[in-house]
């Protein structure tokens, strides 16, 4: 439900399909692109893409991270044999990428193969959006870290209400050869940027060669909420997870539960050895609970981030809780210290609190032995329709299964159970 990064492969595929119409057939982009995934049969790749045999090739990972040259993950001017060997050597391997926001480690799974295009000049071109305007950024110095040459960047702002068909950029571009051609292409790309609901589009560089412009490194984000309007323009599109740690089995399972329902179930495992576990209702409240654990100095002990909201069924809350409890009780704390389960939430609007607790209570009751063995202490805080009954059911459950459990309602500050638990943990 927001801006989502897409593969360079998809971005180039979409642009190649749209540039003709957007420019009145003045421009065409090469649509010879191959995406190699773990399911691709490398030995027969050229059957599907015969051009691979004829062209010199560029190969690079296509997993939403940049600076591939710097990270030595870029193969240029190679023949097919070399390209295949290069991919085979790296497919499924874990690598650590150095990017603008630090180091990230993940597994290589997707590679983009395209024809190698020799060229004369490299420009920088990007389209960004903010509240009131779209901005076109252009620099004659592409192919470098753009921040280092930011003084060469021309920024052209276009009010969001402007008609994209009437945007004119020629007079604003710096002096470059065949400026008119470049201006016409920028205008056509801007039209695609608007029509296709891009939220971000960057070419660094876009190459200039014999009067033609060729997008080289392309980074793009789409606004995925526009999918209901853009299905045809986008074609079959996938929104990959950001490069990084692959999901655990449990996270994948919760994601599959989430996909089954209109309600929301989220789980991110932070530290399986952490002693503070969150089972919080509501997107806003769940963030604040995690915040408070961190702000009170227990970031190292925070085991997970997660939320359930949108009135999930008893079955789903049961499955979700069960998954969380299994993770939490996998092994007792090595020092024998208690673990804390915070069943939190704000004051619900209309959700029946007692009803949503049913699945949680069921899962807790079934995990009785594990909870005892792991010295789990439970804190509950919730308000909203029928909360008294919900809290009373929770309290009785604690007695029944012999697990220490405290309940609080709206008279107690929402995150008070965080400080209560952490105060005890500190002792």
């Amino acid at each position, binding site marked *: 439900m927001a801006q989502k990064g897409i593969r360079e492969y998809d971005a180039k595929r979409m642009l190649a399909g749209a540039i003709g119409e957007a420019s009145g057939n003045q421009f065409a982009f090469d649509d010879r692109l191959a995406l190699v995934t773990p399911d691709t049969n490398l030995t027969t790749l050229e059957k599907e893409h015969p051009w691979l045999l004829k062209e010199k090739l560029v190969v690079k990972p296509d997993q939403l991270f940049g600076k591939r040259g710097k990270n030595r993950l870029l193969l240029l001017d190679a023949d097919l044999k070399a390209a295949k060997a290069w991919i085979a050597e790296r497919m499924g391997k874990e690598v650590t990428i150095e990017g603008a926001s630090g180091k990230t480690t993940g597994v290589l799974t997707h590679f983009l193969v395209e024809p190698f295009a020799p060229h004369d000049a490299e420009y920088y071109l990007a389209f960004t*959006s903010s509240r009131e305007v779209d901005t076109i950024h252009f620099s004659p110095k592409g192919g470098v870290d753009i921040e280092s040459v930011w003084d060469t960047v021309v920024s052209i702002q276009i009010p969001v209400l402007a008609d994209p068909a009437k945007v004119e950029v020629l007079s604003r571009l710096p002096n470059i050869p065949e400026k008119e051609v470049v201006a016409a292409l920028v205008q056509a790309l801007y039209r695609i940027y608007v029509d296709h609901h891009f939220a971000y589009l960057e070419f660094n560089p876009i190459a200039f060669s014999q009067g033609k412009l060729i997008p080289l490194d392309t980074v793009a984000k789409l606004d995925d909420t526009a999918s209901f309007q853009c299905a045809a323009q986008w074609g079959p599109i996938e929104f990959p997870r950001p490069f990084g740690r692959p999901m655990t089995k449990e996270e994948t399972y919760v994601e599959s539960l989430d996909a089954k329902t209109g309600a929301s179930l989220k789980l991110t495992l932070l530290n399986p050895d952490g002693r503070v576990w969150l089972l919080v209702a509501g997107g806003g409240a769940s*963030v604040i609970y995690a915040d408070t654990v961190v702000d009170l100095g227990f970031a190292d002990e925070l085991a997970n981030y997660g939320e359930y909201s949108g009135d999930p069924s008893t079955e789903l809350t049961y499955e979700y809780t069960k998954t969380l409890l299994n993770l939490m009780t996998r092994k007792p704390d090595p020092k024998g210290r208690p673990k804390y389960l915070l069943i939190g939430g704000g004051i619900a609007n209309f959700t029946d609190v007692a009803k949503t607790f049913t699945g949680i209570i069921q899962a807790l009751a079934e995990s009785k032995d594990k909870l005892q063995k792991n010295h789990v202490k439970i804190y509950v805080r919730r308000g909203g329709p029928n909360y008294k009954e919900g809290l009373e059911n929770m309290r009785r459950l604690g007695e029944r299964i012999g697990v220490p459990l405290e309940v609080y309602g709206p008279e107690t*500050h929402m995150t008070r159970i965080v400080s209560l638990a952490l105060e005890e943990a500190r002792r």
Partner: protein
Amino acid sequence: MKGDYELFTAETKAFIYGEQLRAAQRMLDFDYLCRRAEPSVAALITPERGGFEKLFWGTKEIRIPRITSLAEAAARFPAADVLVNFASQRSAYDVTVEALAIPTLRTIAVIAEGIPERQSRRMAALAKAKGKWIIGPATVGGVKAGCFKIGNAAGTMENIREAKLYRPGSVGFVSVSGGLSNEAYNIVARATDGLNEGIAIGGDAYPGSTLLDHLLRFEKNPAIKLLVSLGEVGGTKEYEIAEAVKAGKITKPLVMWASGTCAKVLPGQVQFGHAGAKANTAAETADAKNAALREAGVIVPGSFDDYGLKIKETYERLVKEGVIVPAADVTPPNIPLDYAQARAEGLVRKPTNFISTICDERGDVHNYCGVPIDKVIAEKYGIGGVIGLLWFKKDIPPYARGFIDIVLQIIADHGPAVSGAHNTIVAARAGKDLISSLVSGILTIGPRFGGAVNGAAEHFLYGLRNGLTPRQFVDEMKKRNVRIQGIGHRLHSLENPDARVELMKAFAQKHFRGTPLLDYALAVERVTTQKKGNLILNVDGCIGVLLVDLLTELRFTDDEIDEMIRAGLFNAFFVLGRSIGLIGHYFDQVRLEQDLYRHPLDDILYDVPKSPENPG
């Protein structure tokens, strides 16, 4: 006259766009709780239909118009200046753009989630150009205490009462999250004299109005003395608030917290529930925002845990300084609980008007007498098994299902000449529809047409239950001048038996534990056929006695069997089975395009007197 900082007053009138009766009722309940003079909902905009809707105003019902277009609604109710836009993600933009063009509408709350960002940005720009307000998208809305409530904002009446939203206090609150607004109203209610106005701008990256827009509005409102806000990670609008405080545009004390400080310990770029809640740069992190706000002089707690405390401290300081004179408490009127809610809470009960003991369509799969329909199909209950469940409330064994199937097949049709089929054919030829033609045939079923099954069962049961020997039974019926039903056939005789009868007899004798009534009827047949070879147990008689034997087989008591006979059980089989044939005759006539039937005159004896009898 309201100031331009005031979006809602106790006179505000609004339209609700969309099929949102519960939201409308919640708004009216809030109005009533606030003792508003008039309801805040002027009309429902429902493009599918006009007319009106009945909603409650306290205990009595009032009519709220349904209007099919926004333009018409605005023309009829020019005083309404708020639109609560519940249109879907797909159409919310168009509705909002249309509303922005209507001069009388000033504030539009856009509830839908997932509106494309470019559309949201265009809505915001259009609203700004026209000096109008958009709250949302992706928001529950907001509430002006004691005056007006947008849609479902502030939750249940209990929440509203708890947070004292029925009368204005001194606090202006604005947050990103709508889900947390109830929590915030609760915090404000516990820490201060209450909320004056609360707005949730929505969690999208480009809300139509921002935290700062509303804080500046609250700043101008003399009734608001204390500002409280809740921001979050992502975007940079909090810096504008810090700038506004520094520049003296916000002078009232502001307690604020930006949530999402945990983002730094989360892997990669975790997207929280809100589309806008994602830090793309260091400046967009919650830590940086909280630091900047604190630096500008905003009251920022150390963590959310102290949020309520900071609000309380600030409020008490303002009271001490005389800036705030705590708002007096008032007692709001009672609002009756909705019946459904009261029942859910176990507060009321009422006797039901209907009872069903044969099936239940609630739940995931409908069931017939407790057997889910998927099981009925998977286990091949067939029509016989379904009749067992719905007529007898019994899970009858396969042979009983099979017997019912045989009966229905035999009954299904008896040719075009019999009364029922004839009537259906005549009706079909008169151009009547399927149901009229079918019914005209079915209505013929009764004591004479199809009645023999019923009569046979009654007669033989009488003989058997009264211990009459077959001979005594025949003699008694003769003495009473009653023809024994189910005995006698035009063509068939002992020597030339009816194949249908033989088939049923063989089936029952093979599968039933016993066939006492059939045995009795056959004994009677031995007596009658002594007199005449064709006085055999005919097909109606056989069905009648065997159905009674079947009921005995299914462990119905004599009383229950009598009750079912009186209720028309045999006619039920006849109506059900024969409908198959009657429908066939109807289709046949339609396909053959048969014209209106008129009986030939030479087939009627006209014996009309020359003149009527004169009674004198």
